């Protein structure tokens, strides 16, 4: 989605998502508008904190791409080790979804039967069953 208004410096987590988070975490608490804005900016800082550390860990390894493992190690070294269990759960979900997606697309590829052929086969089947019923 191309950003029509503003430049790259306006990159933050959407305010609506933050408001939702606040509502869910503190359902009966009023939160000042400038406090909400501060929360939005805390998100950016947190992301930069984790990214930086994960990037350093990545650079030290032989890899060029920041992997989930790098992020997990970053959380550990930055003092967020208590987050790791849940983060690993999410990672597992990601892997499961990715696997399902790969299986689904390979199944379609292996069919390899073009649509007209499938239609023809369907007609054949219809013909066969109408014959057998009469």
């Amino acid at each position, binding site marked *: 989605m191309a950003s029509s208004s503003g430049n*790259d410096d306006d990159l*933050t*987590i959407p305010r609506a998502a933050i408001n939702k*988070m606040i509502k869910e975490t503190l359902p009966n*608490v*009023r939160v000042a508008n400038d406090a909400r*804005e501060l929360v939005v900016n805390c*998100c950016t800082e*947190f*992301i930069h904190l984790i990214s930086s550390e994960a990037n350093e860990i990545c650079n030290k390894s032989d890899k060029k791409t920041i992997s989930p493992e790098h992020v997990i190690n970053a959380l550990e070294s930055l003092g967020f080790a208590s987050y790791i269990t849940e983060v690993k759960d999410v990672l597992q979900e990601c892997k499961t979804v990715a696997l399902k997606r790969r299986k689904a697309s390979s199944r379609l590829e292996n069919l390899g039967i073009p649509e007209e052929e499938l239609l023809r086969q369907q007609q054949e089947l219809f013909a066969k069953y109408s014959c057998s019923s009469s």
Partner: protein
Amino acid sequence: MPGQKKQYSVRFPPGRIKKIMQKDTEVGRIAMAVPVIISRALEMFLKSLLTKTCLITQAKFSNILSVAHMKQCIESEKIFHFLKDLTEEATSTATQDNRGMSMWPIYRTKNNNISAQTPSGAGEIAL
């Protein structure tokens, strides 16, 4: 766990997270799952920050969670210390502009010259 589609009610946009990460020019390629797990970590982080700040709000018998409460929370725990600079900017802006954070490029600058300054005498925090 089986049968549950999505366990998390709030999720932050992975695409946006990736863009934020890549603002740092040192950061190169990022595996697909990474923004998703960072989204989760961020959720947990916010839950922790908000809950702990709220304790301060309640301790002060305040009706509304404010920047001041957040600042106090951030200073009180080592894990939040990376946010200290952010709160310095936020507090100094808050005393100048009581309308609230509507224009955050102003919020981000250190030297604020907001013409519509409410004359804050007693409320000013000397930094």
